[in-house]
């Protein structure tokens, strides 16, 4: 392998100095004269028709400039999902509808000279509702005579809206029933996940204005600037040419900003008043009216032969997509497609399920994208199977997991809301992840320790193994443009959307390595739809892998141009030249700096702009792999679960920037531990969110950390840029099954409903007594 100077180095984030000094880099760190402040009136009813909206009193408040509601906005069916076109999510949403479908649904928006006036006006709007029967339990959604949540005639793309079904699938490979009946060992259970929120520290925010050409500029905290541009254009019947979306620094996304939630309202306000407009969600609004993770009920049945070889796997999913179907079917497909191929030895597989509407807030894309829920069920069922066999759960996994050079029929059968793409795993470090993880964790030693500590505590250990994907193959495209200035520095224009992950830095490292100069010589621009080439955006674990391929290709082309200019200078074949640390050398050792090349090509001879664009479309979605290990201590009197030790070994191919890769692992891990132990949005019997704030919805703090060890396991993915695969999502899937399995080991109780709060664990312990 060629020695690398930039790839594999923990280069400091290029935006780091601006971020640690609090520069005005986010959407809201910006103000325009005459800016209007928007506030939204949210539905107080779970399911109702709007008979009348009375804005008389609200309009008469001083400073009120515009009130929008279903009576005065275009009626266009669309999906808020920021996905490639045509979106695999149903067109079941409107800017405002005549109907509300959950407590927190949009009813109207007020734009005023200041925020206080806007809020006062919102409070003065009178809405006359005609209440309809509501559905709060996903099981009720498909019952005969269930109320129909989407009875609008315009709905498109839902499987059977008359029965509240967004998606349905029954995929069969072989004969699961017969195989299960013949299996020596069986495991079975139903696992339940909760409503959880992304909790980006910066909530959704949009500022819009008209530029000097009367074009609409949308400054948005988004993961998907290009999808946002396309969707705004269609909704408002404005040519794409007239819309510019700018993504400044984003204060976290995690999937929640792969949605078009506020852009349409601000844009309408700006188009109608010709004034700048701004809407920011409060924390409460973010919890209730932004997006959530899909709650699922997943039944898994496994069958194995006497030696522990899996014969049959069945996964039955009931997913609750709330009032709207955004990302509903794709998340559900991923629940199977990102989990079942892990155990490719089973020849009988069935994946069946429904995605249903309910009158609750709306799940969408969430880091992990369905795999989180799937792994909870699958990996807990694996431990049940191991327990029945009296086998070390680690050994059971080793007997069954996928390996390099192998494939799974699931890859081709299950894609993103449609069929997938056939692929063979070309890099898999899972064996080493398990090996190194168990050693670091002291798995064998800890399993010999007594479970009981004194009279009131128990300890146990658990593990799980995981895979994810890297990009959506043959669907999503990424492009990059790279341009050299006369001083030999570079501008890298990306549609790839850095939302805090450090992708700007990683992609600059790929360009720097390819050309042969330090990363600091790059200025990265992401993203501005007027200047960046297209990129699908930040989702599906695709930025390093897919956008990285585009950057690599563009950088190769630029390198060729540089060598071409140098070859003319030296009167030699360009192929005889080398670039090192920004200096071109010929075989005699003569030097030419990139600055000399830049000035020559700008001003002196053979004049040309050294620059290139390139696009990439992935043909595969190579999975990263990971093994998770945890030790927990349970207080048997209170049910409090405390994770003590957590070891993650992870194969993301070659880590372009090891520190940033570690950051992805840690962040997703801590988020996942939050899902497992504390995070859950709760609702009243009328569908009102009970805990939409940080006091009552607990995410982990600096006081809640176990001892953590992260072990990078390098493999070389031949299809990835410099051997890289993805790392952004995979590790969020680990804590639910790993901690559940550790509780199982400690107490003999399988916690099948997340999160494992003290109350739930205590009740389970009491039932078991």
């Amino acid at each position: 392998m060629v020695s690398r100077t930039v790839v594999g180095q923990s280069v400091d984030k290029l935006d780091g100095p601006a971020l640690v000094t609090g520069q005005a880099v986010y959407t809201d760190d910006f103000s325009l004269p005459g800016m209007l402040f928007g506030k939204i009136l949210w539905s107080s009813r779970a399911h109702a028709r709007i008979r009348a909206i009375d804005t008389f009193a609200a309009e008469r408040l001083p400073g009120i400039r515009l009130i929008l509601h279903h009576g005065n906005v275009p009626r266009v069916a669309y999906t808020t999902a920021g996905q490639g076109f045509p979106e695999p999510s149903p067109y079941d949403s409107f800017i405002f509808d005549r109907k509300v479908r959950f407590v927190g649904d949009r009813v109207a928006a007020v734009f005023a000279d200041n925020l206080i006036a806007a809020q006062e006006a919102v409070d003065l709007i009178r809405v006359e509702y005609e209440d309809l029967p509501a559905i709060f339990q996903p099981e009720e959604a498909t019952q005969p005579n269930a109320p129909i949540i989407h009875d609008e005639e315009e709905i498109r793309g839902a499987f059977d809206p008359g029965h509240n079904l967004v998606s349905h699938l029954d995929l069969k490979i072989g004969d699961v029933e017969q195989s299960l009946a013949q299996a020596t060992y069986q495991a079975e259970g139903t696992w339940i996940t909760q409503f959880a929120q992304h909790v980006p520290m910066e909530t959704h925010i949009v500022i819009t204005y008209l530029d000097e050409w009367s074009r609409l500029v949308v400054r948005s905290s988004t993961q998907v600037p290009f999808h946002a541009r396309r969707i705004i254009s269609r909704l408002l019947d404005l040519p794409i040419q007239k819309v510019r979306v700018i993504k400044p620094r984003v204060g976290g996304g995690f999937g929640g900003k792969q949605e078009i939630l506020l852009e349409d309202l601000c844009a309408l306000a700006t188009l109608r008043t010709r004034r700048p407009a701004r809407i920011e969600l409060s924390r409460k609004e973010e919890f209730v009216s932004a997006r959530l993770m899909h709650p699922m009920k997943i039944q898994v049945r496994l069958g194995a032969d006497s030696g522990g070889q899996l014969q049959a796997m069945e996964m039955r999913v009931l997913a609750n997509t709330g009032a709207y179907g955004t990302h509903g079917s794709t998340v559900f497909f991923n629940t199977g497609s990102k989990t079942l191929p892990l155990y490719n030895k089973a020849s009988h597989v069935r994946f069946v399920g429904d995605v249903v509407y309910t009158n609750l807030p709306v799940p969408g894309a969430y880091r992990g994208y369905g795999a989180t829920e799937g792994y909870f069920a699958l990996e807990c069922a694996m431990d049940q199977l191991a327990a029945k066999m009296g086998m070390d759960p680690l050994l059971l996994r080793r007997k069954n997991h996928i390996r390099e050079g192998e494939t799974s029929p699931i890859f081709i059968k299950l894609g993103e809301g449609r069929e997938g793409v056939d692929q063979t795993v070309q890099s898999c470090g899972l064996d080493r992840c398990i090996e190194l993880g168990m050693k670091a964790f002291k798995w064998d030693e800890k399993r010999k320790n007594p479970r009981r500590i004194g009279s009131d505590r128990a300890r146990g250990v658990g593990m799980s193994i995981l895979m994810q994907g890297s990009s959506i193959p043959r669907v999503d495209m990424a492009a990059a443009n790279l341009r050299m200035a006369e001083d030999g520095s570079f501008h890298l224009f990306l549609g790839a959307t850095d939302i805090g992950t450090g992708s700007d830095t990683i992609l600059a490292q790929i360009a720097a390595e390819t050309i042969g100069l330090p990363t600091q010589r790059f200025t990265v621009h992401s993203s501005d739809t007027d200047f960046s080439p297209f990129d699908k955006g930040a989702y599906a674990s695709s930025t390093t892998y897919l956008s990285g391929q585009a950057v690599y290709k563009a950088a190769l082309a630029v390198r060729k141009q540089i060598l071409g200019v140098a070859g003319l200078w030296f009167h030699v074949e360009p192929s005889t030249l080398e670039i090192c640390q920004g200096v071109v050398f010929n075989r005699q050792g003569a030097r030419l700096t990139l600055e000399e090349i830049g000035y020559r090509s700008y001003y002196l001879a053979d004049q040309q702009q050294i620059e290139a664009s390139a696009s990439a479309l992935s043909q595969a979605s190579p999975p990263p792999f990971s093994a998770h290990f945890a030790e927990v201590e349970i207080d048997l009197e209170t049910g409090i679960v405390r994770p003590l030790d957590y070891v993650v070994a992870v194969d993301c191919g070659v880590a372009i920037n090891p520190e940033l890769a570690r950051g992805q692992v840690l962040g997703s891990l801590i988020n996942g531990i939050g899902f497992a132990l504390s995070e859950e949005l709760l609702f009243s019997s009328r569908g009102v969110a009970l805990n939409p704030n940080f006091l009552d919805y607990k995410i982990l703090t600096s006081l809640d950390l176990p001892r953590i060890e992260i072990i990078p396991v390098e493999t070389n993915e031949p299809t990835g840029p410099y051997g890289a695969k993805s790392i952004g999502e995979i590790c969020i899937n680990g804590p639910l099954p790993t901690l559940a399995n550790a509780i199982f080991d400690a107490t003999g109780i399988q916690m099948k409903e997340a999160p494992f709060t003290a109350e739930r664990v205590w009740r389970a312990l009491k039932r078991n007594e």
Partner: protein
Amino acid sequence: MQLSFKLNGSATQWEDVYPGENLLEVLRRHDCWEVKGNNCTNGECGACTILLDGIPVPSCTVFAARVEGRNVDTIRLLGDPDHLHPLQQAFLRHGAVQCGYCIPGMLLSAHALLVRNPHPNRDEIQQSLSGHLCRCTGYLQQIEAIEEMARLPEGAE
């Protein structure tokens, strides 16, 4: 009403402060964009933390009128992009910064801790960050960065 106080060491007088306005709103209205986090406004996330007479507090929980005659420091106290404070450099070195939104507040709490106690132990460091929510990093990176600072000889910061 009028408000006179010291902002990052400079005597500051603002005329257009309304009674009942919180400090966060007033600071951002006067283009102190370095104070982030104007969405929870409940003191729950810690992103808008400033130093009030050297003590870290979420500025959304302080009535602007209460800082009359007092010292308010924002992240500008530490460094600028071309002259980073060693603590800021340590945060970057340890990968403590991802989206960065919570970072100015965290840095101020960490700085206040190190001023008060140059060699804090891990518990004290974790306590000092406990009022700051971060969804990107997992906190370990900030703790490690502050630990590195705590190992420096006195006065080296």
